[in-house]
């Protein structure tokens, strides 16, 4: 039973009729309905700085003919509004003569429970824990001068109504807990940030006082940085730690393997399928099917069941990530990567959990093999230029490596590399694959969607390190 129409004169039958009338001569399209509640509670400077609750619902109506997409969205769910949207779509797709592709795979797969993180724990309890986080973090050491902590929770209901009346549904919980600690010693200030999250209850992360580990980790990173010296500049060997540093994979190759950039031939990878793009032993997948992970989905935002898509296998480029539009135009099938931030946004091929699989080396072997280089353990944000292939990411915890040994921590530096060549410069792949703690949000064309990454330790032959020390 659909819940979207209960407060309006519009019922499912009427909506179905408008959708079918609008789309029957289009190649594809759907009515996407969304109902989301979310909360953000922020503790900052010893106070609950804000407590925001948001309830939003709306629809996005999409019609596709050939390679032209018409989209109209509104937060007024009514027959009048939907008819206006229909008119707007038809005015863009003049004289559309497509044949509607009604094929869509069915699934019963479920990677997360139907729960409501926002309401299942009351606000007073969440505030109490944030205050405990603040007190605990400040009690670790007198050097802690500032603590910011927040809870972000969301429950999103979506329904996808296709031409002919097919209705696909998903309910998606998502939580995230972040702690940021600023320490000060001898006039020098540094911060450390750590967070956890996933498609589950807050309590999964809070039970057994597990939240203390988040504070401890944020504090550890901050104090490490207090001792950091200026980073070297120039090309050198880089050892990446396991887990979150896989945002390198996300930036270096992930975006370049999204279907839209390859259909439009603006990605450096567009003519490299079947070719060698990475060292032997490098296998990268994009997996939407891992239990309770931030980047997992039962179905994508077009209704396609998610899957485990092999992108690069043993160094050879195998597949791109596809939504329905780009898959059709490239004569292939959607891989369940069609995603959108909300009903206000158009669908694009987006990553889910992007992971490099294990190899055979140990992190120790990697460090020992480096005469001069850096060991990067954690990163802040990254970015890529799809066309030139250049990508960057900024270290939030890194160390120098001298003669096979880990040396002093170094100041946050940006690393820059070239997507297609950097994976060919992977010298060793570790056996310690880890997934990230569940905090990633990927931005593309102004839309943010939750994603995950994972990788084992990696040794890269050369990358340019953006320090100040020559």
């Amino acid at each position: 039973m659909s819940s979207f129409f209960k407060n309006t004169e519009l019922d499912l039958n009427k909506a179905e009729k408008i959708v079918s009338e609008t789309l029957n001569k289009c190649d594809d399209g759907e009515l996407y309905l969304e109902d989301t509640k979310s909360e953000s509670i922020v503790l900052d400077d010893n106070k609950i700085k804000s407590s925001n609750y948001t309830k939003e619902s709306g629809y996005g109506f999409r019609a596709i003919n050939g390679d032209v997409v018409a989209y109209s969205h509104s937060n007024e769910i009514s027959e009048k509004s939907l008819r206006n949207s229909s008119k707007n779509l038809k005015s863009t797709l003049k004289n559309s003569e497509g044949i509607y592709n009604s094929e869509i795979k069915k699934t019963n797969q479920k990677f997360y429970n139907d729960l409501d993180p926002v309401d299942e724990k009351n606000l007073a309890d969440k505030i109490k824990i944030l205050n405990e986080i603040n007190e605990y973090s400040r009690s670790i050491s007198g050097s802690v001068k500032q603590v910011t902590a927040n809870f972000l929770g969301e429950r999103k209901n979506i329904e996808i109504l296709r031409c002919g009346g097919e209705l696909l549904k998903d309910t998606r919980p998502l939580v995230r807990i972040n702690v940021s600690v600023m320490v000060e010693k001898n006039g020098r200030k540094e911060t450390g940030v750590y967070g956890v999250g996933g498609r589950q209850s807050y309590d999964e992360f809070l039970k057994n006082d597990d939240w203390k580990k988040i504070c401890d980790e944020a504090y550890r990173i901050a104090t490490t940085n207090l001792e950091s010296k200026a980073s070297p500049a120039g090309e050198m060997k880089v050892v990446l730690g396991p887990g979150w540093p896989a945002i390198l994979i996300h930036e270096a190759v992930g975006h370049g393997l999204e279907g839209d950039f390859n259909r439009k031939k603006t990605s450096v990878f567009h003519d490299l399928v079947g070719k060698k793009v990475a060292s032997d032993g490098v296998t990268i997948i994009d997996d939407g099917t891992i239990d309770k992970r931030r980047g997992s989905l039962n179905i994508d935002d077009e209704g396609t069941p998610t899957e485990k898509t092999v992108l690069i296998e043993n160094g050879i480029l195998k597949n791109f990530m596809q939504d329905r539009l780009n898959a059709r135009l490239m004569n292939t099938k959607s891989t369940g990567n069609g995603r959108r931030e909300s009903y206000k946004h158009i669908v694009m091929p987006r990553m889910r959990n992007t992971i490099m699989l294990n190899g055979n080396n140990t992190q120790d072997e990697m460090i020992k093999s480096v005469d001069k280089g850096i060991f990067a353990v954690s990163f802040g944000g990254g970015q890529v230029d799809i066309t030139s292939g250049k990508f960057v990411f900024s270290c939030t915890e890194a160390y120098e490596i001298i003669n096979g040994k880990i040396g002093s921590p170094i100041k946050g530096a940006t690393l820059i590399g070239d997507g297609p060549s950097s994976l060919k410069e992977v010298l060793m792949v570790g056996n310690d694959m880890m997934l990230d703690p569940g905090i990633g949000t990927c931005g593309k064309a102004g839309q943010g969607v939750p994603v995950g990454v994972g990788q084992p330790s990696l040794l890269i032959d050369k990358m340019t390190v953006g320090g100040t020390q020559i």
Partner: protein
Amino acid sequence: MIKEDRFLEKIADFCISKSKDLGSTSSNVLVMNTISENVNIRNKKLDGSERSENLGVTLTTYIGKKKASISSTNLSENNLIELVTKCIDSTKVTPEDEYNSLPDQELHFKGEKNLELYDNTHLSNDEKINFIKEAEEVAFSHDKIVNTNGSGFSETKSNFILANSNGFSDGYKTSQFTAYCEVVSKSNGSMERDYEYSSKRHYKDLLTPKQIGDSAAKLAISKLNPKKIESNKMGIVFDKRIAQNLLSTFASAISSNTISKGTTFLKDCLNKKVFNDRINIIDKANIKKANGSRYFDSEGVRIEDLQLVKNGILSDYLVETYSGKKINRKSNGRSSGTTNLYFENGDQSFDQLINSEKKLLYIKETIGRGANIITGDYSVGASGIMIENGKFTFPVSEITIAGNFNEMFKNIILADDLEFKYSTSSPTMLVNGITVGGK
């Protein structure tokens, strides 16, 4: 059609009076309607169109020094009652914070609204398509432009009412017209992209399609077949579109929020020399038709003109009510951030600037968010063009540039070519002694 004031006021009034009925001691509400229409084209033909219509309400209620907020897009009366109730319930369980309050009534904006921030012009989808198609056609007329990443035109109109329980109730319409063109150049196996865009409150103020297409094409072509250079310390010339980012970083380092928490490298720098004495920074809200202009901030506070830096000395902060109280300063209307923020012109021409050293690196693009406002450290990926003896010689890419703002700010030399293309604007900027990470 964009909703008129009276419609929005009715919802605002309802929320304020319902909040009072249910026990709030004060409240603040924003009701906003935005309609935007855009078209995207690719390879000179239509790629997509999008129409969006948003109407939403954000309510903050106070009970004494307790505060909570709620927002929603469902404005039916039943839902509004449910929201106000939920907001009040949340307020009750939120701890007191002595700094929570509405702004001082005497700071409320009152006065004329004559900045011409709204242009009623409406372009049909076909007119939008023709405008941006012409830009792409011009771009494709350049050799070596082989593809596009898409180009687009958007028209956005908004109206809002901001009201609080101290009697403030005001709002106004704004419009924004934006055209952009992003093209791909190719030569000898090298592929590069670049863009040009124009975004204005009034349709007639936009660059012409020809100017946009020509500029995008030239920029993308100038990046082809780049080289990587040796690591070195050198003078960097920041193109205007990058120089403005340094100004934005400066602004976030002097907001009352970061100052009150001490999480900024510019803490305790008020009335001290932060830049060299040729540098002046202004934030001015009342420039006619300008992108950053507004009458009042998100709390309804009037916006003073600020000279943030005078002859290199930091002379003011960006202050809003809550964090302003923590540092004993009254709001100067910056709860929505800066308005039209700019460096005053320097005394050198662009030519003098690029001839000031034998070798300089001209930076046109940076990637990554490498500015740390707590330590002042700066490190980003970059690409640009080498300048040798005042001549642009070859493109450079896959390098990093790094330094610390404390030092960089003191070394800034500005050209005299300021223009108000963005809401944050800088003339071309030279900074000596920056570390370039390359080979």
